[in-house]
């Protein structure tokens, strides 16, 4: 289950989807909007996505995770639009028979999302804004 949404990310359906009788371990990673970056106060964020390609890149990552580890089910949900402090920007969930695979696969997915998926984060401060990693 992979999606990009402008609405708040709902944990309940993600959890329900991951529950299968063979699953012994579920690992969920929530990326949350922090109130600061490099000690500078963040007021809010905006995420912009190249939706079709982002979905396609996230699918590649999920496929690779499923190839490397014994992944029974996964969810990847990325938020876009304006987010306030404390809101969930991304939710990754992985169900596996045993726990090591759940941690490894979940971590691989979020680490790789940050490297390859065409989604961009803009941080807004009291005195300006910047595209993370990109503003020269």
């Amino acid at each position, binding site marked *: 289950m992979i999606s990009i949404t402008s609405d708040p990310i709902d944990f309940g359906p993600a959890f329900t989807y991951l529950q299968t009788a063979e699953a012994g371990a579920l690992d969920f990673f929530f990326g949350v909007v922090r109130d600061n970056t490099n000690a500078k106060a963040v007021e809010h964020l905006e995420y912009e996505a190249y939706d079709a*390609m982002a979905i396609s890149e996230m699918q590649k990552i999920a496929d690779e995770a499923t190839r490397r580890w014994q992944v029974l089910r996964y969810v990847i949900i990325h938020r876009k639009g304006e987010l306030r402090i404390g809101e969930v920007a991304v939710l990754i969930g992985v169900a596996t028979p045993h726990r090591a695979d759940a941690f490894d696969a979940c971590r691989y997915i979020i680490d790789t999302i940050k490297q390859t998926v*065409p*989604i*961009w984060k803009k941080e807004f401060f009291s005195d300006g804004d910047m595209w993370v*990693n*990109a503003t*020269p």
Partner: protein
Amino acid sequence: MYRKRTLLKLPVRYYLCAMNQSVSVLLFGITRELVGQSKLTCPLPAAARVSDLLDALKTQYPRLGDLKSLLVAVNNEYAEPDTRITSTDEIALIPPVSGG
């Protein structure tokens, strides 16, 4: 003097960005802001490659050259500099990503 410089620039743009085909380029994030629009059209030679498109755009929008990386996606896939592009491809500029 001002007018002359403007006129001198035009042929350069024409050479780089006004040829046998015209490709649409989607812009996101900082590239959308630097260019000031979410989509642009760039004329290119018929056998143009990704590297030709980047050269043309960086000439026309020099601030794109200040980005620490600028990739091109063709039909939702990251493309190599020598990938050929045509007017039917969906093309997008991909500045450094920051999702997650």
